[in-house]
């Protein structure tokens, strides 16, 4: 469903992602773990076309993310780590607009926008300018933007960052339900417990390389995931 094949990204002389090869199946929740600067966000941005891969390629639903990027984007919902919105659009308007940009009719977009506003607890703020939202509200609005067109694949960069505990639990349930419908989720997170509870498989990135892939049990059969993570991402001289 989502395949990365020898994906590389160079920032000048620095190689952020090194020959990343990965396969995420339909109905699977795959979690990227890794310390800061490991290359998680760069990989996600390459999948979304925000960055151009230095070499290698990625496909989503059999479509090349660079060559067929228009078709890919109708199948993908994306939530960045730190979503920013236009200064002069209200939350409700923005959501309807995003829906329409994905080909929904205005009426359908409005209905779906209302649904997600209620589902994600943004009713009270729906008439405020989206750019004035708090971090958590922006995150929830960004998630609504990613979900409004009912995508097949969800790519989430730190989905629970800035959310209060109740909202974080709600978002976690939402992702589980999404995957239960046979759709794919790729997410990056720093929260090991979230990854443990949510993801079917995990990939640990370190210095741009995928150092471990597998289920939680496969990765840490004896000890905790935290210990395994620290061991894998320790910088040796």
């Amino acid at each position, binding site marked *: 469903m989502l395949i990365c094949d020898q994906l590389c990204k160079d920032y000048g002389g620095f190689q952020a992602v090194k020959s990343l090869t990965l396969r995420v199946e339909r109905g699977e929740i795959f979690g990227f773990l890794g310390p800061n600067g490991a290359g998680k966000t760069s990989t996600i941005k390459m999948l979304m*076309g925000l960055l151009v891969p230095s070499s290698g390629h990625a496909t989503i639903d059999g479509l090349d993310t660079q060559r067929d990027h228009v078709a890919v984007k*109708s199948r*993908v919902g994306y939530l960045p780590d730190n979503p*920013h*919105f*236009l200064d*002069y*659009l209200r939350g409700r308007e923005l959501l309807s607009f995003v829906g329409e940009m*994905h080909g929904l009719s*205005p009426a359908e977009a409005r209905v779906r926008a209302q649904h997600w506003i209620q589902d994600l607890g943004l009713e009270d703020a729906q008439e405020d300018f989206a750019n004035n939202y708090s971090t958590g509200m922006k995150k929830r609005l960004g998630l609504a933007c990613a979900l409004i067109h009912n995508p097949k694949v969800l790519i989430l960069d730190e989905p629970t960052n800035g959310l209060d505990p109740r909202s974080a639990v709600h978002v976690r349930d939402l992702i589980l339900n999404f995957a239960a419908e046979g759709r794919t989720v790729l997410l990056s997170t720093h929260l090991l417990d979230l990854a443990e509870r949510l993801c079917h498989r995990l990939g640990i990135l370190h210095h741009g390389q995928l150092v471990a892939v597998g289920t939680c049990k496969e990765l840490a059969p004896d000890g905790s995931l935290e210990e395994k993570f620290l061991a894998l991402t320790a910088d040796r001289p």
Partner: protein
Amino acid sequence: MTGARLFGKKISGPDCGPALKGARLFGILWRLQTRRLINRLQDLRTRSLTLTALGSALLILSLMGLLLIMDRSVQRLLDANAVREVIQRFVDVTWDPLRFTRYEDVPDQGARLMLLFLNSTLLSALFLKWGHWQSLQRDEEWEWFAEQPCPAWALFVQRCWMESLWPQGFSLFIGAFFMLLGLQRGWAPLSALGMTLVLVLTLQTLLAAPRLTLDLWLRLRWPAHRVRTLRGAFGLIGAALLVLGLQALSIDQGWAVIAVMRMSSILDATPVALALSAVMLRDEAAALRHFASLLGIVVVIHLACYGWAAWALRRPTPGHAAWLGRSQDQKKQTLGLRTWLWNRLHPLTRRDLTLLTRDRHFILQILGAPLVFAIVPQGLPMQDTAWLLAMAWGTGLLFLWSAVFYILPMEGRSLWLLFTWPQTLSQFLRRRLMVLLALAGCYAGLVLGLGFLRAGWERPWELWRLLYISWGMLDFGVLFTSLAVFTYEPEAQGREQRPGLWLNYGMLILGAFYGWFLFRPDARESLLVMVGLSALAGFLWWRMTLVLPALLDRHAAPPVRKLRGQEKLHFFKFITRWIGFACVKCCWFAWIIWAI
């Protein structure tokens, strides 16, 4: 006494706690307003004063240039005496009506112009202040009022007085005008200052109560976001009225004055006319009588507003939720056609139009400035179709120049959203460019329409050159868009994202050259320029589509930088060839003249 409810909160009644003392409350409000001013000053200080000074100097130079063009003496641009003479004449014309000794002696036209200007300023203050960004905070103030254990109508009265006494921008404007007028009328400086202060405060007081009453009335009936939208629209009306007022000072004839003269009796009866006459009349008794009338109007209006506020805030008012239900019903009945038409537009176009109407910076600086250019130059020989077309081209180009370079920065930090939609960036740019081109066409059409209304067209067959203008706008729109993309810095903030000065003003000069070709008698020359420009625009657009996928990827930049260098090279090649062509043409003319 029944307690009224404002936004679902009890705001008055026997259960209210001990009332705040009036003076203390007034002090709190005053400090609040002072804090706002200090915050604004701090905000201003963070901006570059040098840039502001340079901008002001540029504006003055532009106005001087405009005066020279209006005087049809562009060739004498370098002649200092000619410049001085033109400016002196302009100043004389502007201040001429003020030299008369009696208000009644002022020729109708001049008096009407002054009245129109002052009335426009007063009205614009009414709308502008209400639509000002500070008004956005007023919702919180109303909420704060509602939480106070005082009767709400008394708070309303105090807020009115606060607004009346707090210095407003327009007070300075009108005050300076009255002060100068008083001095020219032979008043002692202190007397002129005292009279000015009294009159300006009176006018300000006159505005405060209606403004607050309107705000309260709407806030009691509409949800906050709708009131905010309306405030934005009213801000626009205020800006337009201000432009009208400025125009009144800068013109001495034209359709606007004729229209105004037809309603002279109405203008004479306005509060501003009373204030003006109080300054202009030497007969002290008459001046005092007018001033007393003005004060009478103020008192009546304030009492009426207080009475209404007391009535409105003491009766049970429908809550927010109840209102919302009613408004949705009304919306269903009245907005069907508008919604249908609105929904026919592409979502991007709809969003762009929404953003354009909400971004007041964009409205005033990008939408407003060309409007001034379209309306103000009344001294040009508008009956000459070539002049008219040149003005139409210039106005449209000015709009395009200022708007299209914003085509990406307008997205701000939400540019990532464009990468999540199933559309290419070039499709997005094309659609936004179409909106901006349509608006530029409207400006050009406005100039042509105004010119026709004023003087008709001498040689209507020359309007075929409209095709030339439309073609040029399309070319320049494409050119500006491409250059905006090439020079876009995704990590820069605000204005840094726009192209540099050399490119910005270079393109404006190129546009002016294109306008110059409108006057050329030889259609072949125009055709050559059109084809050359289209080729350049097409080439840049094509290269831009190659660059777009890596717009946010600075590290995919080496080919882009190389490309940018190539674009500059092609651009300079184009300019060089053009200059070469002009040189050859000049030599050819010189040869013909020599041969003759």
